[in-house]
């Protein structure tokens, strides 16, 4: 006991200012510094991962907005294009256009004659260049029978080499374009017959097996239709549920059960909602597979808890004085809620809804379950059509082996992220603009 009482009673030398205490203090501060460093490292890790993610997407995706094209002198031989001679574009032999493009390519390289050599040469041109030629001829029907210089997409390999996505100094066996083809490419480039043009196909076309023909229009339309169904179903139902639970519900077992339910639904894995959609909507009710209607219904159930929770918070934030004021004027409970409380809570509800919709926009797994990974080459025209969605398109393209789909995937993600940023920015704007008026 005596050695303990010493520091407590001896006031001449404070224990806390002794040399031993100073030394101890230095060790404690070293530990403090280390701990703080852990925090900095953790945050730096999270932030740098986000930076790397975004940087990678930009680096690989940005080139997809451009497409390498080659200029060829195409002869639209009337006998080939229009074998029936009716002059009606509907009677054209569309399959023959690829041949026209190939002929034009052979003409540009007259010295290449052998079968295998020509096949190698054809490797420069997109195997679906004919489709572009058809569109060109449809827009300018007068070209039939003439010889015109036309810009046509190159093959995926050439496209990637020209844009620098594939290193041309790699050993020949490691790249899709061999040395001879590189020679052809360089020759055309020196003649000014190679250019990089804006890839409008990416925005105007739907899915395709050929990267140069693939676009996001179909998936975007599918996503929009799905989102329309989702918001039309989820918003009214959620707001009604929130109003009931927050303003009307008596405190009993049933409402308690509903509340527990909502909290748990919010944490159910999204793929389980997909299974629900599959078993209920598709198999039991026989609704159309792959349709935006079913996709929207599944996503509506998915976001329901989120919007209900946000709406309840918004309703709760309306001060009771406003309710009392309205009730005191002789308004009924329902009138009070509809005329006064709900309008005041609306900004908060909208913010929550937009954030929930942004979440639904990125959902992929439940849509896969109900078949929205359909291979759709034209945009859906209605809620019952087979359709895809943007995140699903990302998934489908990420799975494809062609090098060209890597940049398309990244580009599609960039578009998806743009939508998400826009939605979140709107939500923040709402929150700022309508902040508390009381």
């Amino acid at each position, binding site marked *: 006991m005596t050695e303990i009482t010493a520091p407590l009673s001896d006031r001449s030398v404070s224990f806390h200012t002794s040399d031993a205490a100073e030394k101890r203090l230095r060790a*404690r501060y070293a*530990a*403090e510094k280390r*701990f*703080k460093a*852990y*925090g*900095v490292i*953790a*945050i730096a890790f*999270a932030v740098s*991962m*986000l930076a*790397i*993610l975004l940087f*990678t*997407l930009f680096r*690989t995706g940005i080139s997809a907005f451009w497409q390498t094209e080659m200029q060829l002198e195409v002869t639209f031989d009337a006998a080939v294009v229009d074998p029936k001679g009716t002059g009606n574009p509907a009677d054209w032999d569309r399959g023959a256009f690829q041949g026209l493009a190939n002929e034009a390519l052979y003409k540009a390289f007259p010295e290449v004659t052998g079968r295998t050599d020509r096949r190698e040469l054809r490797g420069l041109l997109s195997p679906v260049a004919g489709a572009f030629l058809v569109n060109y001829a449809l827009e300018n029907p007068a070209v039939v029978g003439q010889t015109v210089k036309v810009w046509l997409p190159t093959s995926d390999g050439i496209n990637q080499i020209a844009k620098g996505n594939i290193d041309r100094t790699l050993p020949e066996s490691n790249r899709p374009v061999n040395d001879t083809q590189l020679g052809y490419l360089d020759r055309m480039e020196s003649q000014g017959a190679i250019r990089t043009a804006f890839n409008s196909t990416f925005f105007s076309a739907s899915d395709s097996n050929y990267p140069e023909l693939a676009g996001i229009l179909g998936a975007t339309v599918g996503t929009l239709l799905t989102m329309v169904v989702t918001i039309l179903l989820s918003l*009214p*139902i959620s707001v009604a*549920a929130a109003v*009931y*639970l927050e303003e*009307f519900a008596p405190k009993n077992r049933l*409402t308690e059960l*509903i509340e527990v339910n*909502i*909290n*748990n*639904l919010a*944490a*159910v*894995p*999204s*793929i*389980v*909602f997909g*299974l*629900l959609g599959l*078993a*209920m909507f598709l*198999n039991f*009710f*026989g609704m159309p597979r792959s349709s935006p209607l079913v996709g929207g219904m599944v996503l509506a159930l998915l976001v329901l*808890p989120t919007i209900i929770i946000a709406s309840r918070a918004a309703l709760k934030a309306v001060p009771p004085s406003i309710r009392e004021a309205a009730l005191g004027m002789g308004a*009924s409970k*329902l009138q009070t809620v509809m005329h006064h409380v709900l309008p005041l809570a609306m900004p908060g509800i909208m913010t929550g809804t937009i954030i929930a919709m942004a979440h639904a*926009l*990125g*959902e992929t*797994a439940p849509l896969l*379950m109900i*078949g929205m*990974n359909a291979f759709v080459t034209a945009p859906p025209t209605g809620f019952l059509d087979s359709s895809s969605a943007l*995140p699903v398109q*990302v*998934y489908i393209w*990420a799975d494809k082996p062609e090098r060209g789909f890597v940049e398309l995937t990244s580009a599609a993600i960039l578009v998806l*992220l743009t939508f*998400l940023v826009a939605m979140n920015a709107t939500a923040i704007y709402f929150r700022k603009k309508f902040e508390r008026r009381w």
Partner: protein
Amino acid sequence: MPITYTVGTLLILTALGYLLGRRKAVTVAGGNIASLHSVPSYYGSFSALWVLLPTISLVLLWLALKGPVINWAVVDGMAPEAVLGWANASIPPGELEAVRARVAEGAGALTDIQRQLLLINITNLAAGQAQYVNPAVVDILRPAAAHMQDLRSLTDWALFGICVSLAAAALFITRGKIGPAFRARNNVERIVTFLLIICSLIAILTTVGIVLSLVFESLRFFTKVPVTEFLFGLQWSPQTAIRADQVGSSGAFGAVPLFAGTLLIATIAMCVAAPVGLLSAIYLSEYASGAVRNVIKPVLEILAGIPTVVFGFFAILTVAPFIRDMGAAIGLDVSSQSALAAGVVMGIMIVPFVSSLSDDVINAVPQSLRDGSYGLGATRSETVKQVILPAALPGIVGAMLLAVSRAIGETMIVVMAAGLQANLTANPLASVTTVTVQIKSILVGDQVFDSAKTLSVFALGLVLFAVTLVLNVVALRIVQRYREKYD
């Protein structure tokens, strides 16, 4: 008479009901509106609601039941000869005997799969898509297809007729009720409140729907594969053969490798997310200045808002090759679909989730405890480690459980970055598969809804649902109790 016309007609009738109800009220008031119990628009709404609600419920009910009912009527109405004729052309000879023996029962002689196949043929024919149907059976099935078309148009017309009569009756009855003493507002409000209750019940219906669909299909699965084999079997290879004589026709449905793979990846994810998320939360709430917080928090929110499919792509594009190259550099053989890559990326995805939950929990620790500790001469880190974290422990445990549940249920990252091969291993460099990957890979592409293979998906889904549900209930309860302690 397509449904859209029926609905359009009903909407017009609803508007009409509103106008008529309102006018009746004004008329009975005889110029003295104040003599009415409610404002005239409530009388209009009263009529309109009674026109709309019963009829629209009927339409929805019929939309839900139409498919199954008509299919049942068409197939059961087929003549035995037609069934046999179709069976001769469409069923493998091995199964034909059974059908022949019981053909007197008509379509009752068919198994569920055969019935589905028959229905697909009839539906295609009825839709005018004969090119998808085996030409040999087109003529045999024509009567059934015609029957289906007849039933469809007949029922649609019947629905239209019933709805319009119901609406008319509602118009007539409500009109009769309207008088000065009639409490229209109270009636309307009662109906609206009822609708509100229905909406809040949808949350429960969703849960019931999930449980029912998972349980029923799982029960069908467990008649083919014993529960014990599913839960404790060590072999998972769901590939059942199409023909009975193929090799390995039975498939194996021991889900332990899937559970193990899911746990392995979730563990790796938590090894990344737990320290990074928790330490970021601690730094943000205890060390960072307001300015730093205002920058870092939105950045973490952006990370939280990125769709998981994007993280999946990030995994296959960047992280998996990086880990493989690192492994190769130190002489390790890393699978290109390693659990490590999927787990790390999933961890990155969960970081903002853990961090924001932990942040809430840490901020709920009262300032007075911090003051008490600082007042005794503790440094910040000592305060965090010895006072704040122990005080916040229950909340942090709850947050971690929620994060684990999130990791277990996550689909897209593992679908893209993890493998399909069900390996039972704890090696993070090897390729494993997870519950969600199997659900996705079995269901996408395969549509025959009777094989053990497709049904196994629902058993997996049930396990997934049950596990995440338990984790959530426990976690939410812990967090809630923790909150109450400091409120």
